[in-house]
C-alpha cells in the first residue's frame, strides 16, 4: 500500500510545474557553477605548479645556510569545485623565516583577494538555498492543499494509515527532488571529465558522494518542514508563510545573526596589540644591537643587516674582507640569532592570546549557529572538500613545526654558536685569516684594475648553490577529506530531520481532514 502511495506521489510531482522548474534551475546552476569553478581550479592548480617551479629555481640561488628561507605552498583542493568554503579567503603561500613564527599564509593562488567577500555559486550554495527552497515548495501544500481540494479525506478513507500516507508524501517529494540533483550532477561530472579532463581519486569520489548524501539529508529536512507546516494549519497560503519563515530563519538569518551575536558577546582584542608589541620589541632589539655594536666599531645598521643579518641575503658573498670583519660577523650571528628568535617566540605568545580569543569567539558562534542546519551542511561540505579553516590551520601549523625543526637542526650544527662562520659563508676558518685576505686582496686589485667587477671575481658562481642534502626537507601533510566531520554533521542533520518528521507525523495524525 505504501509503495502504491509512493508511486502516486512521485507521478504527481513529476507532472507539476515546480518539478520542471526545479529540474531546469538546478541543471542550469550546477552546470554553470561547475564550468566556471572547474576552470578556476585548473587556473589555480597551474599557478600552484608555477609557484612550486619558481621556488625550486630559487633554491638554486641559496649558497649559505643563512639564506635558507623555504617557501611552502598549499595546493588548491580539487573538491573546491563543489564547495569553495574558505579556500579563496586564505593565502596559499608561506615563507618560513627564522625570525618570525608563521601566523598566516601570505600569498594566494586566488588572483583577487578583494573578491573574497563576494558570494560564489557552488554546489553547497545550490543545496543550501535553492534546493532547500524547492523542498519547501514541493510539500507546503501536501496536506492542507489536498484538504482544500477535497482529496485528502478520500485518501485517508482508503486502507492506508496516516503514517504511511505521510511517509509516502515525504519520500515521494524526496525522490522527485533527488532527480534534478542527480541529473545535474551527472551533467556536471561529464563536463568536468570530458571538457576539463579532470579526474578524481576514489577517496575524492567518496567525498563527493558524502557531500551529496549530506545535501540530500538537508533537503529532506526542509521537505519535512514543509510537510509539518502543511499538517499544522488548514490553509496552504498560511502553511507556505510558516514554512518560509522557518526557512528564512534557518538558512538566511540564523547563520548571520550568530556571527553578529558572537561579535558583540565576545569582541576580539584590537590587532594593534600585536603590531604594537612587534614595534616595542623591535626597538628593544635595536637598543641591544646598539649595545653590541659598541664593542664592534664600524657598526652601521644598513651594512650589518645587508651583509650579515637578514636571511636570504647573499650580499656578503659578494664581499670579502679583513679577518676583523669576519670576527665581527661571527659575533653578530651569535648575538642576533637568539635575540631575534626569542623575539619571534614572544610575539607568538602575544598573538597566541589573540588566537585564544578568536577560538572563544568561534566557539560562541558555533554554539549559536548549531541551530541552523545550513551551518551543519556547510561544515560537512567544506570538511569533505578540504576547504574549511581546519585545512588551512594544518598547513600553517605544519609550517610552524617545520620552522622549529629547521632552527633545531641549525642549532645542532652549531650555526648559532661555535660554527657560526659556516652559517653565513663557505670560506673555511683558515681562509679568513688576515694574511690570506691580503693575498686575495692583491688578486682582486689586479682583476679590478683589469676591468672585472666584484661579481666577476667573487660572485655567487664562485661557490655554487647548497647541495640538496643541506636543505631542510618539508614534507607536506596530505589533505584527506574529513569524513568524520562530514558524517558528524550529517548525523546532526539526520537527527533534526527525524525530530521534524516525527513532529509532522504527530501533527498529521491529529489533523482534521474534513
Amino acid at each position: 500500500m505504501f509503495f502504491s502511495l509512493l508511486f502516486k506521489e512521485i507521478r504527481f510531482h513529476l507532472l507539476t510545474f515546480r518539478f520542471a522548474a526545479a529540474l531546469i534551475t538546478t541543471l542550469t546552476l550546477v552546470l554553470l557553477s561547475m564550468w566556471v569553478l572547474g576552470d578556476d581550479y585548473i587556473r589555480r592548480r597551474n599557478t600552484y605548479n608555477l609557484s612550486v617551479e619558481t621556488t625550486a629555481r630559487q633554491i638554486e640561488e641559496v649558497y649559505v645556510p643563512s639564506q635558507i628561507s623555504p617557501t611552502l605552498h598549499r595546493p588548491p583542493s580539487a573538491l573546491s569545485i563543489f564547495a569553495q568554503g574558505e579556500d579563496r579567503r586564505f593565502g596559499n603561500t608561506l615563507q618560513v623565516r627564522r625570525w618570525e613564527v608563521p601566523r598566516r599564509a601570505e600569498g594566494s593562488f586566488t588572483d583577487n583577494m578583494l573578491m573574497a567577500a563576494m558570494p560564489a555559486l557552488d554546489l553547497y550554495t545550490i543545496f543550501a538555498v535553492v534546493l532547500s527552497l524547492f523542498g519547501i515548495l514541493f510539500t507546503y501544500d501536501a496536506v492542507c492543499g489536498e484538504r482544500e481540494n477535497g482529496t485528502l479525506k478520500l485518501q485517508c478513507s482508503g486502507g492506508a494509515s496516516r503514517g504511511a500516507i505521510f511517509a509516502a508524501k515525504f519520500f515521494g517529494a524526496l525522490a522527485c527532488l533527488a532527480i534534478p540533483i542527480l541529473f545535474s550532477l551527472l551533467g556536471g561530472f561529464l563536463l568536468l571529465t570530458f571538457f576539463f579532463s579532470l579526474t578524481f581519486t576514489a577517496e575524492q569520489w567518496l567525498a563527493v558522494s558524502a557531500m551529496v548524501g549530506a545535501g540530500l539529508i538537508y533537503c529532506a529536512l526542509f521537505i519535512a518542514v514543509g510537510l509539518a507546516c502543511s499538517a499544522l494549519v488548514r490553509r496552504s497560503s498560511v502553511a507556505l508563510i510558516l514554512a518560509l519563515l522557518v526557512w528564512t530563519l534557518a538558512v538566511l538569518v540564523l547563520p548571520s545573526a550568530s556571527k553578529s551575536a558572537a561579535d558583540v558577546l565576545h569582541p576580539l582584542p584590537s590587532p594593534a596589540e600585536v603590531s604594537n608589541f612587534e614595534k616595542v620589541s623591535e626597538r628593544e632589539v635595536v637598543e641591544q644591537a646598539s649595545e653590541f655594536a659598541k664593542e664592534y666599531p664600524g657598526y652601521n645598521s644598513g651594512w650589518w643587516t645587508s651583509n650579515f643579518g637578514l636571511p636570504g641575503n647573499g650580499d656578503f658573498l659578494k664581499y670579502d674582507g679583513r679577518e676583523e670583519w669576519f670576527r665581527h660577523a661571527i659575533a653578530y650571528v651569535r648575538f642576533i640569532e637568539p635575540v631575534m628568535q626569542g623575539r619571534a617566540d614572544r610575539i607568538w605568545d602575544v598573538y597566541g592570546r589573540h588566537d585564544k580569543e578568536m577560538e572563544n569567539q568561534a566557539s560562541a558562534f558555533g554554539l549559536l549557529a548549531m541551530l541552523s542546519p545550513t551551518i551543519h551542511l556547510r561544515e560537512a561540505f567544506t570538511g569533505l572538500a578540504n576547504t574549511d579553516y581546519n585545512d588551512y590551520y594544518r598547513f600553517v601549523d605544519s609550517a610552524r613545526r617545520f620552522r622549529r625543526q629547521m632552527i633545531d637542526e641549525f642549532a645542532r650544527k652549531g650555526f648559532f654558536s661555535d660554527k657560526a662562520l659556516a652559517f653565513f659563508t663557505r670560506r673555511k676558518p683558515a681562509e679568513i685569516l688576515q694574511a690570506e685576505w691580503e693575498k686575495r686582496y692583491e688578486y682582486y686589485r689586479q682583476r679590478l684594475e683589469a676591468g672585472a667587477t666584484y661579481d666577476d671575481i667573487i660572485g655567487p658562481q664562485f661557490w655554487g648553490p647548497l647541495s640538496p642534502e643541506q636543505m631542510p626537507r618539508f614534507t607536506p601533510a596530505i589533505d584527506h577529506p574529513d569524513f568524520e566531520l562530514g558524517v558528524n554533521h550529517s548525523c546532526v542533520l539526520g537527527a533534526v530531520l527525524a525530530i521534524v518528521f516525527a513532529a509532522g507525523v504527530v501533527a498529521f495524525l491529529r489533523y482534521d481532514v474534513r
Partner: protein
Amino acid sequence: MDGLRDAKFLFLALLVLLAFIANGVVFRENNRLEKEDHRTAITETNRLMQGVCGNLQSAAIFLQRMIRPPSSLAFIAEGGGNMMPNAVVINAFSRWGIEYQQRNNEKIPVLPPIDWSFIVGVMMTLLAVLVSYNAVAGEKKDGTLKLVLSNPVSKLKLFVGKYLGLLVTMLICLLTGVVLNLVVMVMMGGPQLTAETLWPVAWALMLAFLCISAFLLAGIAVSSMTRSPAVALVVLLVLWVLAVFAVPGIGRLAAEQLVKVPSQAMVEEEIYRAQEEIWENRPRDAANWNGNPFEPHVPQRAKLSWDQISARERISDSYIDSQIRQVLAAKQISAVSPYGLLGDSFEVLAGTGVYGFEQLHRNSIAYRRHLYQFVVNRDKSDPDTPHLVYGYYSSADPGVFSQRPVPFAAIPKPTALWKETGLSIEREWPLWQLLVMLGFNLLAGVVALISLLRYDPR
C-alpha cells in the same frame, strides 16, 4: 489595509523589524570598537613619529600605517567589512604593502552581514514576493476578481490600486524599520543625524523603495500571467533565488573569466625580474656606498633606487587596479539583478567595500606624494646635503638629504585627508544605479500592466 492586517505579512514584517533593530545594535557596537582601534592606531603612529622628528631623514623613512577610518554608514552596507584591506604601509618613498588591520576572526566562516543591503535586498524582497504572488491569480482562484471587475473599475485602476496598496504596505514596514534602526543607534551614541548622514540615508531609502517596488511589480506581472497562484509562486521564488543568490554568484565567476588578474605569485615574479633587470643594467658604481654622500656616483645610486621603487610601484599599482576593475566588473554584471544593483549602490553610499578600498588606494598615492614633496622642500633649506632625496624600505643612505630636526606639527598627516566624521572625502552618489533601478521598475510595470490588461478574469 488587508495587507497590514494579514497575519502572514505581520509575521515576516516583524522579522524584518527585528532585523533592523539588531542591525542598529550590532553596527553601533562594532563601529565603536573600530573607531577606538582607529584612534589608538593614529595615537600610536603619532607617538612614534614624534620619536623620529629629530631627524628629517628618519621621519622620511619612518614606516607608518595609513589606516582608513571606519565608515559611519556601514550599517547601510558593510561591503565585506574586515575582508577588505584597510591599511597601507607607507613612507615618503613608496607604499610598501596593504594590510588588514581589523578585528577579524578567520576561524568563523564568511557570512552575509545583517545590514540594510541584506534586510532590504533579501528579506524585504522575499516579503514583496510573498505578498504579491497571488495578487491577481489568487483573486481569480477565489472568484473575487471578476466581482471587482464587474464594478466600473478599469483594469488600469485595478493595477494601480493593487500596486499602490502593496507598495504602501511595504513602505510602512520599511520606514518603521529604518526609524527603529536610527533610534536604536542614536540612543546607543551612534552617528550624528546631520545632513552628511541623512542625505545618504535618504538616497538609500529611495533605492530600497525602488528595489521593493520592482519585486512587487514583478509579482503582479507573474501573477497576471497564470491562473494558478502556486505556479506564480514557484516562478517568483525561482526569479528571486536567481536575482538574490545566483546572479551575484555568477557575476563574481563571470568577472573572473572576463577580467583577468594575474596571481600574486606572478606579480611578485614580475617585480623581481623588473628590479633584477634594473640592477643588472646599473651604472658601474651605482651599488657602492662608501659613506660619503657627495661622491660623484651617488646621484646614480639615487636613480637606481628610484628606478627600482618606481618599477615595483608601477607593477603593484597595475595589479591593484586590475583587482579593483575585476570587482567592479562583478558588481556591474550582478547589477542585472535589482538585488545586486541595490547592494552595489548601498556600498557606494556608505563608502564601503571596493569603493572604500579604492579611496584608500587613491589617498595613499596622494599622501605619499605630499609627504615626499614636504621632505624635498625641507631639505632645500639645508645647505649641507647634496639634495638627493631617496631611500629604501626602512633606511636611507646617511646624509644624502637633510638630517635636521623637523617639527612634528609640520609633517603632513594622513588623517588630514579624511574628515573628522570619518566619512569618505569624496561623496559619490549612485546615479547610474538609480537610473537602472528606475528602468527595472518601468520594465516590470509595463509587463505587469500589459499582462493584467490581457488577463481573462473568468
